């Protein structure tokens, strides 16, 4: 329990922690107020058994209950508000923290997978957590605090009975620990079962076309059925082994009650305690197990908290880089790699690369997939920080640039186009806030986006909303129009985008031509046709530059490039 609270508190900032601590203090006060039942009962019975009972007695015992009740209400109000504010506040702050963190995370980290995960954590996970965060302190502490206070109150009436209650509560808590250990024993196999099901379901859902066409469902989906059955077995076994222990635990609370009753009877018979005290402690024994029963185990709660906290921390644990360098206006767009090495996940991707790209030239990176050509282009714009060597733009290490002023120099035309759920105009103006209508129109024209004017809402059409679904090719060209508006000095092109049908290809090519005019152009080339005109071609293999030069020079050498071109010819001339 304490561990769960600690885990939760580690998640909150100082201010929130203070709110929750205060809420706990208020809960203790509430517990004390709640225990006022006992003296109220005692006072009433005492007067009855001693024959001094009158209407006044009733008023007095009512007062003994009502005043604490009033205090308790005030405490509950304050504590509820504190927890509500603290709970929603801490998830809100965690969300902001994640957003802030993302600003410093290397660009290279982002891909469809990681972005999907981060989104899900920032939305779903945090929502789930805020729901719990507002209740967790109350849920976890109230039962224990109330129990402890009632036990202490019983000591007031008779220390022997108090002692019995105390011993009982300790045994009860000991069983809690046993249960937790039992739970832990099953945790790893449960996790294994969960993972098995998860990976099978993922496979099934993502590969549904294959599942259908290879008949991998119904009685043929043995792998998934096994995982499913394994999950059922593991969970049933785990739960069934817990149930007797849990039952013994509740049984213990009943035993405490019985033991207290026995002791109370004996003490009463022996004349040690009067009847009023005896009745009160017997009633007290019932109060104890009412509050013990409300303690619960919270195993699901702590699982959820643990998972939420873990997920958030995972994102916050992504290494950041320093992005606040100088604002530097570049005079040339010369790029230089000096002995650059870069590894990701312990795998060396770029291995001691040195190269120079002259400003206003047009260069291409060619190589098999996985050779590192894309990574080299990413390193220029500091998507990652290199581990060895340095990348220089205009003679200045890219690490020394303010990230925004570095980015000003680059435009990317990549496969995954992201346009905001906003009007076309606003999407374009993202590149240049104070762009005039003329400039926007011009960019659209250059990027072959005439279709925009045929839309009912024109450039005020909101992208992504029902009805205005634009085709992939159209979105691609809009992103190029946006890039044209940005008018940066260097354009990095991933040619994979050019793999579209002939009709679209022509328009896309025209758009790209407009974008790259008079710019430094760096392309990741998949097609060899465009490569021919390049000022320089770098052939990359296994993270190294293995060849470089113009097309004609490279064709004269035996090597990857020549083999590539010949393969390509083969592929194109292939006929069924």
């Amino acid at each position, binding site marked *: 329990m304490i561990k769960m609270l600690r885990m939760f508190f580690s998640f909150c900032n100082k201010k929130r922690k203070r709110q929750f601590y205060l809420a706990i203090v208020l809960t203790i006060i509430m517990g004390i107020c709640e225990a006022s039942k006992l003296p109220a009962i005692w006072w009433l019975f005492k007067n009855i058994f001693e024959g001094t009972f009158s209407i006044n007695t009733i008023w007095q015992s009512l007062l003994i209950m009502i005043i604490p009740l009033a205090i308790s209400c005030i405490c509950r109000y304050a504590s509820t508000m504190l927890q509500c504010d603290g709970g929603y506040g801490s998830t809100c702050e965690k*969300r902001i923290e994640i957003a802030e963190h993302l600003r410093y995370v290397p660009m290279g980290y982002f891909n469809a997978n990681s972005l999907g995960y981060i*989104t899900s954590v920032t939305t779903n996970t945090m929502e789930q957590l805020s729901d719990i965060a507002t209740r967790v302190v109350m849920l976890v502490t109230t039962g224990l605090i109330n129990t402890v206070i009632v036990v202490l109150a019983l000591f007031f009436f008779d220390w022997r009975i108090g002692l019995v209650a105390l011993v009982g509560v300790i045994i009860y808590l000991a069983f809690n620990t046993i249960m937790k250990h039992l739970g832990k024993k099953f945790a790893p196999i449960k996790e294994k079962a969960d993972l098995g099901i998860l990976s099978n379901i993922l496979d099934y859902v993502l590969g549904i076309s294959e599942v259908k066409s290879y008949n991998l*469902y119904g009685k043929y989906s043995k792998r998934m059925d096994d995982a499913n059955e394994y999950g059922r077995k593991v969970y049933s076994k785990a739960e069934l082994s817990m149930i007797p222990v849990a039952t013994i635990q509740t049984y213990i609370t009943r035993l405490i009650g019985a033991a207290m009753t026995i002791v109370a009877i004996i003490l009463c018979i022996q004349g040690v305690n009067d009847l009023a005290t005896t009745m009160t402690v*017997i009633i007290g024994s019932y109060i104890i197990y009412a509050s013990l029963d409300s303690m619960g185990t919270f195993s699901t709660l702590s699982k959820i908290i643990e998972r939420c906290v873990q997920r958030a921390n995972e994102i916050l644990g992504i290494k950041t880089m320093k992005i606040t360098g100088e604002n530097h206006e570049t005079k040339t767009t010369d790029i230089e790699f000096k002995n650059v090495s870069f590894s990701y996940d312990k795998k060396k991707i770029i291995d001691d690369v040195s190269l120079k790209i002259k400003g206003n030239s047009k260069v291409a990176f060619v190589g098999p997939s996985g050779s590192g050509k894309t990574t080299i282009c990413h390193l220029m714009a500091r998507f990652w920080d290199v581990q060895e060597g340095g990348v220089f733009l205009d003679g200045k290490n890219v690490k020394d640039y303010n990230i925004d002023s570095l980015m000003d120099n680059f435009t990317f035309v990549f496969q995954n186009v992201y346009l905001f759920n906003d009007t076309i105009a606003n999407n374009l103006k*993202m590149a240049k806030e104070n762009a005039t209508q003329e400039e926007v129109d011009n960019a659209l024209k250059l990027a072959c986006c005439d279709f925009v004017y045929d839309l009912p809402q024109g450039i005020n059409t909101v992208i992504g909303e029902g009805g205005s679904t634009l085709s992939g090719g159209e979105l691609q060209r809009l992103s190029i129009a946006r890039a044209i508006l940005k008018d940066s000095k260097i354009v990095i092109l991933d040619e994979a985008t050019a793999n579209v*049908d002939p009709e679209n290809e022509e328009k896309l090519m025209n758009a790209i031509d407009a974008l790259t005019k008079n710019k430094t152009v760096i392309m990741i080339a998949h097609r*060899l046709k465009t490569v021919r005109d390049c000022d320089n071609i770098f052939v990359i293999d296994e993270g190294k530059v293995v060849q470089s030069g113009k097309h004609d020079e490279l064709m004269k050498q035996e090597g990857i490039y020549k083999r590539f071109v010949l393969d390509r010819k083969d592929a194109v001339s292939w*006929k069924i």
Partner: protein
Amino acid sequence: MKRRGLLSILFDYASDKKRYYIVSIIAAIISVASGIIPFYFVADIITKLIDHKDVFTDYLMDIIMILVFFLIKGLFHVISTSLSHIAAFQIIKTTRKRATDSLALASLGDVKDENSGSLKNTLCERIDSTETTLAHIIPEVTSSVLCFLGTFVYLMILDWRMGLFSLIPVLIGLISYGTMTIGYGRYYKTCIDKTKILNDTAVEYINGIEVIKAFGKSESSYEKFERAAKEGASCFVEWMRNSCVSFTIAMSVAPYTLLAILPLGGILYYNGLIPINTFVICVLMSIGLIAPLINAMGHADDISKAQVIFKEIDRIVRIKQLDRPKVSKALPKDSSISIKDVSFGYKNEEVLHDINLDIKAGSQVAFVGPSGAGKSTIAKLIASLWDPNKGDIYIGGVNIKDLTLEDYNREVSYVSQNNYLFNVSIMENIRMGNLNASDEEVIDICKKCGVHDFIMNLEQGYDTVVGDSGSHLSGGERQRISIARAMMKNSKIVILDEATAYTDPENESIIQKSLAELVKGKTLIVIAHRLSTIINSDDIVLVNNGVIEAHGKHQELLDKSELYRNMWNAHIQAKDGDIND
């Protein structure tokens, strides 16, 4: 869809474990009764104490009975919860199976309309999260409610006035709780709206982070997100602030039965209307009266959550299934394909209009046309991923609607540009083409497909696990493995839907060489952008705007179709291979 309660859905999915639930409920009832009976003996003890019985043995019988009944209570509690747990896990398992089977038998289009992330979520985590409800709801809610009722009735029997008094605080609590609903609609709406704005902003901020950074807009976008996050939190706090007084009173007063029992019982006693021992036992019983009720109410939230989840699963299970018989009415005679008057559309938009086409067994046919013309859709209809809205498709003279999916799938292989590889070893992935294949047969097919060498070059060889994580297979390599898998299946009809579009040149030439070998003698349908690859086809089908505009051999089409001629010219110009002109 018909509205169904959780219980009826549960019973539906519990199938053969229904009995478990029934026994579980009976055990719960016995358990609750055994929990209430001890009050009788406690009352006896109290009476004896007041009567000053001074020998401990007078009390011994009562104490033993109390313990015995608690023991019985515990025993039946074990039975009840054990059975409900067994049933719960069975339900989870069956439900998952039914939902996944439903997906496989539905038309692919409907499945692809589902968000794969949320499907995964529903089928894994969300189903699992119902476990607590499924396993605890039945015994606990039943026993909580029964416990309240039982205790209350007993209280009424002891003294009906005391019984009624015990309800006063609950009523005050309920009234107070009721005032919370004032303004509920307005606050609820604000909170939902703000949460939606927050989520939308988060999605946009995170998914657009690359663009935001690339255009140097991180400051302003971040501020927008921050604002949304703060508003998303403050609206809930505001709502709570508004209803907190009612909430506090409800939560503090409702369980406080003593507040009424003690003074009002005192008045009854004062007026000689109730004996002292009854008074004491009423006080005692009232203490635990309300807690179970609150406990049951606490489950209400879980129940409604589980209900939402099961409705969602029910929806998945009820996704329209492809209309196929249990047993095939006839089996295809050969591998010819015939499309008759087929029209098809997604949602409300028809994309194919009255298609008629005959493909001879063993012939090689290419579908060409501008993007969006419908060529890929025709292929998918032949692959039975969807059913046509109108018209029929025959293979080997049999309507595919008269074949079971299983029989049908044996006849046809469909390879697209984005094939999925399962998160198991390469060996197992390829074996999926034919579950009975031995390791040697898998390796043999890999050799024929030209993938054996590259697989052997991997550190783990055929045991390399191909998940999205862990291995570093390139797109081209994955494509080659999936083609080997399709070849393993050795079906008579093969459909290649731009199967090599996204591969790099090295991989592409290897794939193409091996394919030519493997598809000999089969009916082959190819969809390709690069026209030069299909000019030798037996039949080239030109699809445009959802109709077959022309078909014939390459030269025929060049002569008779202007569209084809234009496409050919565009292709010749863009063609990659003209480096050495």
